[in-house]
């Protein structure tokens, strides 16, 4: 059963935590530019499952994004003018 499931699965590139790979890529709530890479255009935080971050960095990233939200550097929810 397990083997069947594995065969069915498509080939995926293995995701790597970008913060582990590049030490110059720092998580900081004062820098919304980098944080924005890890949110959707609606302002939601992208899950680890999709972004590929490691647990440690995802935890720091979420606190940083939430801090940036409290001082209005990032939106709680971005409105899309097209709707």
């Amino acid at each position, binding site marked *: 059963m397990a083997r069947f499931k594995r065969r069915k699965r498509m080939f995926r590139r293995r995701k790597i935590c970008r913060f582990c790979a590049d030490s110059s890529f720092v998580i900081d*709530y*004062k*820098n919304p*530019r*980098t944080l*924005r*890479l890890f949110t959707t*255009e609606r302002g939601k935080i992208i899950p680890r499952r999709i972004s590929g971050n490691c647990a440690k960095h995802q935890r720091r990233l979420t606190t940083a994004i939430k*801090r940036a*939200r*409290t*001082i*209005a*550097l*990032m*939106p*709680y929810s*971005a409105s*899309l*003018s*097209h709707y």
Partner: protein
Amino acid sequence: MRRYETVFIVNPSLSQEESQPLFDKLTDLIAAHQGLMVKFDEWGHKRLAYEIKQQTRGYYILLDFCGNGSLVKELERNMRLDDRVLKYMTVCVAKDVDEEAVKTEIQAAEEAAKAKESSAGPVEDAAASEAQEQAPPGETLEPSLGEAEAPDNAAVSTDEEELTDGKV
């Protein structure tokens, strides 16, 4: 002693003369409570991600200082009472900071700033003009959002642009 960072947003319509007394009051407060001022960084006018007190823009200031809980309490009390401050947030950066180490750090920063001023005059001008050229696309929020609305490929490319902007 603990090290704190306070980011606060001041009403953007205030002139320099109007906001200066507020800044002086806050910095005096730090000194009065045996605190140590490390950095007073004015980020300048920025667009807010959401409206605060019917304002869409704000003047951001970062206060980097050392002190104890009573100082933070007093600072936040003052900011809460002041109508000029739209919003504030204090973050504890480090617990148990060595006072001497911070003092040397302040001195080093001052010397670095002086050295920069004296040596890199023309280079700084070039960098400033470059920054101005690149500022318009990054500054406004709406155009980038609009691009992200377009097909998937477009969204990816805007992300990359933003990243390179940040590194510059």
